């Protein structure tokens, strides 16, 4: 049974430009997204900033009304049966906002427990259980305004699980959290599907998606460009290879020349302090290292290496091609 279904979902935003001469603009944030999530599955939605991930999630959790298309949770339409859906979903947004700052974690949880109709007799035990789960036990009486980002994020997770929802939406839950905190959060996320929940997760971190998700959809410019298991997505680029070149002060025209080489599928440049890392994905059976280096004439070059593609390479190739 499909727990979450999106069928040709579209969402357009209206905005204006100018101060005196105002002009209305329509921005298509989501352009026909379709996917489904089975019961107990951890489904990942990956995409760059502005790809439409949060808009898609907000339509599914009833916060935005789709411009067209249908979204269903547990078989119920998210627009027509919004309240029914709200009772059965939990959601967690990344970032350090979305909590009542002047109140303690305990008060925040008590308030949302009432808003979500958690039985008064069960509230205390449920809150204790969740504080234990997210590692905030002993700190629950402190005001949220004094919490670190990681603590806030963990409190968000506790808030999203208060009513023990069968479906959980997590929008970049580990963003900005330190590595140790992020690892703990990932363990918590993994435990959700272990307890039978269905999870939709968005993240920028490929290793996170690779480690956690049963299936992944890559979204770019408001459309899904690929969908499958992490292994299937990797297989799409596994027949090629990746050349990495450390460069110092590479210019865009040199990168463009590399991009135009026959057999080059995608080129990205990552800044690494004073140097950059040029990552070139190439087609199978071609040895392009010399050709790539010849296009970087005049650029100081450091280490050059070749490796097998990863899920991140698959993601970059898909998003660049979109």
């Amino acid at each position, binding site marked *: 049974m499909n727990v979450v279904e999106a069928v040709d979902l579209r969402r357009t*935003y*209206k905005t204006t430009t100018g101060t005196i001469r105002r002009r209305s603009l329509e921005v298509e944030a989501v352009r026909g997204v379709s996917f489904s999530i089975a019961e107990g599955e951890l489904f990942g939605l990956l995409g760059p900033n502005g790809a439409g991930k949060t808009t898609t999630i*907000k339509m599914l*959790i*009833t*916060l*935005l*009304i789709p411009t067209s298309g249908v979204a269903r949770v547990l078989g119920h339409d998210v627009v027509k049966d919004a*309240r029914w859906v*709200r*009772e059965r979903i939990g*959601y967690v*947004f990344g*970032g350090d*906002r*979305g*909590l*009542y*700052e*002047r*109140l303690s974690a305990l*008060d925040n949880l*008590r*308030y*949302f427990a*009432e*808003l*979500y*109709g958690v039985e*008064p007799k069960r509230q205390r035990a449920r809150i204790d259980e969740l504080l234990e789960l997210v590692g905030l036990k002993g700190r629950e009486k402190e*005001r949220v305004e004094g919490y670190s980002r990681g603590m806030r994020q963990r409190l968000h997770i506790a*808030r999203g699980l208060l009513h023990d929802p069968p479906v959980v939406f997590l929008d970049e839950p580990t963003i900005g959290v330190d590595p140790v905190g992020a690892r703990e959060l990932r363990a918590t996320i993994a435990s959700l599907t272990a307890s039978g929940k269905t999870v939709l997760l968005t993240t920028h971190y490929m290793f996170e998606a690779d480690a956690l998700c049963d299936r992944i959809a890559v979204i770019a410019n408001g459309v899904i460009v690929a969908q499958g298991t992490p292994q299937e997505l990797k297989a799409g680029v596994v027949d090629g290879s990746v050349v990495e070149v450390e460069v110092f002060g590479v210019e865009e025209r040199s990168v463009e020349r590399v991009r135009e080489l026959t057999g080059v599928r995608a080129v990205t440049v990552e800044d690494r302090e004073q140097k950059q890392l040029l990552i070139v994905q190439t087609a199978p059976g071609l040895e392009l290292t010399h050709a790539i280096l010849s296009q970087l004439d005049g650029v100081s070059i450091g280490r050059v290496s070749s490796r097998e593609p990863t899920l991140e390479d698959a993601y970059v190739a898909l998003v660049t091609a979109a």
Partner: protein
Amino acid sequence: MLRALRVIRIGWLLQLKTMARSGFDVLTAIVTPITYASIAFFLYRRGGGAETLLWVSLGAAFMGLWASTLWGAGNTIQRQRSQQTLEFAIAAPTPFLVSLIGTSLASSTVGLYSLVATLVWGRLLFDVPLELEHPILFALSLPAAVLSLGLLGIVMAATLILYRYAWALANMLEYPVWLAAGLLAPIALLPGWVHPISYALAPTWGAKAVRESVLGGSPLTAIGVCLGLAAVYLAIGFVFVQNFERLARERATLALS
């Protein structure tokens, strides 16, 4: 119903807690009614007798009560927007109107302090007499006034769900309502076209109920009108919240601060 009452109770309690934890909010709540009361006493103490001063003093108390309600209505939604809690509160299965009732009533409750502060201030500094004609009806008129003002606050707060800048308009309503509700001068002195507006406002009837229970008269009618208006405001608030919430979800304005 019981669940709604629990949400109202905890919303009211936590809103009071939130307000009590801001030094600025506490200072404003303490100083504002005293300032209003002082202005009113200085304006009237030459021309008026003891009864006039008490009448004015009760009007000044409602100026504070109204200011608190108005500020609370505007601030609740604005703060939720800036904290980004508005989306979470709206996406909860409990209708947003119910959580608004708790927070709005909290602001009116804080406004009750203005009544006490004004009367004590008047007694201590301006020798305003403090004798209640109908103590029981006075005790009834207070919750009726708080309820009707609180629910009027909901109508205003509901508009902020959709219109982010409506708080500026709400702030502009502070002084006109003092006049229209007859808080500083009797409504009879106002032009006839203002009267229908006056009679639709909770502060008009709240002040009337309290004044008649203190100074003498029959406050039961005003108390009844307060309760009737509270029901009307609740109905308007229900329609506003339902429609504005849907429009905000259509226009994607809930996340904007």
